[in-house]
């Protein structure tokens, strides 16, 4: 199946909006997906979290759309929709039965062009409250919920674009004003700073004609200049953040810088795969050693955040038995990383890592929404929508040597950024 290729056509409107269409006639559903080149990395140091708060306000109405109507019109026509804000970008997306394509494009165009007409203080105050509760629900009222927020500053300097999380700083959000929302919209929400992808039951001609009709009249300014941080090598000095918290068992969250995505996508993929060999799933070395053989841990997991401004990062999590010493577990991680960086993974381990990534890719691409998102990403972040079709061949050509080298180059620093949780109260 590594020869699967998705049909993708692209053009750029006069106002700079980059449009991609991935036609799949007869599918019955269509996905519309917009990526704006603005994320938490673009925020001012005193307004951490602003890109995400702004994303919420995009659902509160625009010149021709009443507050709440965006969601209501799309939902009531059978659509699924949402938006997310990450370090690098903000995306807005909806999938729906094909008859609602005009509606979706009209709604997206209206809030891109005319959001400011509908902004008011009541909406800002309300959505700020909602964001506070989002943070409490996802981070403050969940065991280990702030682990990534604590780990990121150990991997990146405070003034680095990735030095804080998209959810941001609630105190700073409390100080933000409606005027700043307007400025943010006029600075970053420009046709020239966005990519629009339409995937599913539409022909390329129809898709382009509709994109032109709804988005063509929107005035734009020059595309904001993209500034990227210089790549950083692995973290040098070990930083350990120890927390005593209301958590069920001790845990270690370990982080490391990784290569950035394109044009280092191959090196990043090798690092991602070898991190998987180390700590993803039942076949991983750490699961076998810590969960099965030594029985000192209840779970091991690994995660990679692929990014573009200098570096990506990887994270490894181990939850351990309360009677076990966290030092021993961290030493075991070190040992396994060293073994991988010296001898590399076995051929079976490489094939397992590739098979797992391939299935994840097919899962992502199994819906029109997933395909549209992948295309928007490739177009916005890397400048070429067709890169989505290069991923599987690249994956299948990765070698054990490349994985071993990625382990040596990057994972050996994994235990230098540590967040350690110990439960408060009686250990049992």
């Amino acid at each position, binding site marked *: 199946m590594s020869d699967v290729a998705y049909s993708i056509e692209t053009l750029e409107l006069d106002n700079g909006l980059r449009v991609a269409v991935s036609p799949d006639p007869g599918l019955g559903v269509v996905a519309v997906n917009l990526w704006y080149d603005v994320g938490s990395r673009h925020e001012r140091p005193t307004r951490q979290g602003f890109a995400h708060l702004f994303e919420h306000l995009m659902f509160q109405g625009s010149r021709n759309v009443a507050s709440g109507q965006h969601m209501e019109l799309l939902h009531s026509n059978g659509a699924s929709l949402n938006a997310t804000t990450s370090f690098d970008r903000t995306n807005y997306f909806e999938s*729906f039965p094909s008859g609602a394509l005009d509606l979706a494009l009209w709604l997206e165009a209206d809030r891109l062009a005319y959001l400011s007409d509908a902004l008011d203080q009541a909406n800002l105050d309300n959505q700020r409250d909602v964001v506070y*509760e989002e943070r409490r629900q996802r981070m403050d009222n969940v065991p280990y919920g702030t682990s990534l927020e604590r780990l990121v500053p150990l991997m990146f300097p405070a003034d680095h674009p990735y030095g804080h999380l998209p959810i941001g700083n609630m105190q700073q959000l409390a100080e933000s004003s409606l005027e700043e929302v307007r400025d943010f919209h006029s600075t970053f929400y420009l046709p020239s700073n966005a990519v629009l992808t339409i995937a599913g039951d539409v022909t390329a001609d129809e898709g382009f004609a509709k994109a032109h009709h709804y988005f063509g009249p929107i005035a734009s300014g020059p595309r904001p200049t993209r500034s990227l941080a210089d790549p950083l090598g692995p973290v040098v000095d070990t930083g350990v953040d120890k927390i005593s918290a209301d958590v069920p068992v001790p845990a270690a969250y370990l982080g490391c810088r990784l290569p950035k995505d394109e044009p280092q996508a191959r090196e990043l993929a090798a690092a991602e795969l070898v991190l998987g060999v180390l700590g993803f799933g039942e076949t991983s070395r750490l699961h076998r050693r810590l969960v099965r053989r030594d029985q000192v841990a209840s779970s091991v997991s690994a995660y990679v955040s692929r990014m573009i401004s200098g570096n990506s990062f990887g994270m490894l999590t181990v939850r351990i038995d309360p009677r076990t010493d966290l030092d021993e577990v961290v030493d075991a991680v070190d040992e396994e990383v060293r073994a991988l960086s010296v001898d590399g993974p076995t051929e079976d381990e490489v094939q397992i890592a590739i098979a797992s990534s391939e299935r994840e890719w097919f899962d992502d691409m199994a819906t029109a929404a997933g395909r549209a998102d992948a295309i928007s990403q490739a177009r916005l972040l890397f400048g070429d929508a067709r890169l989505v079709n290069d991923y599987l061949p690249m994956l299948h050509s990765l070698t054990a040597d490349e994985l071993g080298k990625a382990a040596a180059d990057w994972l050996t620093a994994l235990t230098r950024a540590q967040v350690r949780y110990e439960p408060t109260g009686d250990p049992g």
Partner: protein
Amino acid sequence: MSPSTSPPAVVSNVGWRFPPVRETVLPNAIRLLAYDCPGQFVIAATLVFEVPLAVEPRALEGVAGLAGRLLTQGSGALSAERFADALALCGADLEVVASVDAFVVRLEAPVTKLREALALMAQCVSDPMVAAEEFANEQRLRLDEIEQEKAYPNALASKALNRALYPESSRRSRPAGGTAETVGAIRRDDVVDYVRDRLYPSGTTLIMTGDFRNTDPRALAAEAFGSWAGGGEASSGLGDFPVVSWAPRIVLVDQPAAPQSTLRVAGPAITRADPRWAALFVANYCVGGSFGSRINTVLREQKGFTYGADSSVQTTRDVGVFVVATSVRSDATTEALSDIVTITRDVRGGFSDEEVGRAVTAASESMALGFERASAVAARVELLVSSGLPLDHIDTNLAALRAVTPAAAAEAYRDVIDPATFTIVVVGDRATHADALASLGHGPLADG
């Protein structure tokens, strides 16, 4: 021509239907249900054993879940590690779930490796090792999970709600995966007995969904499962039919200094087999089943108490329950609960034509989208099989949804949902909330 200042018209998608089934019976009496989902290269294959959780001995609750974990820890000639390697080399994933109505084994695998992956699936259900050391490790891990769940407010809320809603005689009143006491009491032989007595091919359903343009699901299923023989005493009919609590009360689970209160507001409802199901589904959509619902509009969009609030009708084969779920800022706890009770009560007065019209279109037009993935098609068929519903239920329900009127939605809601008798669960700071909850006027307050 410039775009208009009012929303463009939408063309309805009335032609959508659930994919047709190809139903056959394998020689060993496994019923195969195959569904073609073009373009879906990750195949879903799901085995549904109609064994309810209620068959577990009271003192050994959790044995079904533990049996499920052990299936993937060694079978045939493959040790646990070799089995995991073989499955991973296929890019496949195998998940076993013991739920209220059924014991279910779910495989997902790329179509190119389906043959190998199905063989592994067949091996793990027909010939599991249940090795002593694997049993011991899985028991340890399950006990760890039970301990860890206590730190998660949503898990605490669900557990307290089940304990309050169902009578002690019902299996549903206790955790599906057992308690520390019952899981600790399970011996390896109990798992072996469960597997032998409950998991056999005769009468079992295999659901396969995905892109079968170049693959014959029946031939692959027959090859993988053909040599597995056996039958036994039917387990269906052993489910419990509890009377869901009708007595208003509030259960408070203490989570000291919690920044939010995790809330559940629940009462009895109906199952999908009930003729009022479509009408109640539409009513629920308006009350709390959508972003623009009355509950979410008030609690999130007007008051900013929460990141989100919703309601749902949760169904199993024999019982349905209406549940409102949300997490709210701690100091908004009692006001949010009052709002929920008020909204769910006032809605008994009826719905507007517009509100119901939107709900009907939303529910019917979203079908195509909801079943884009092969795994989503398989999950819905699994629900039908484990709930004892006919396979044409999705299409007949779709027709019924389209016919729901505002009067029918209001009538179904009034018939079924009685907010005066709701059970309320709060997971939050007891010292802060106990007095206010006790004087809320919604029945007695108890510690959970």
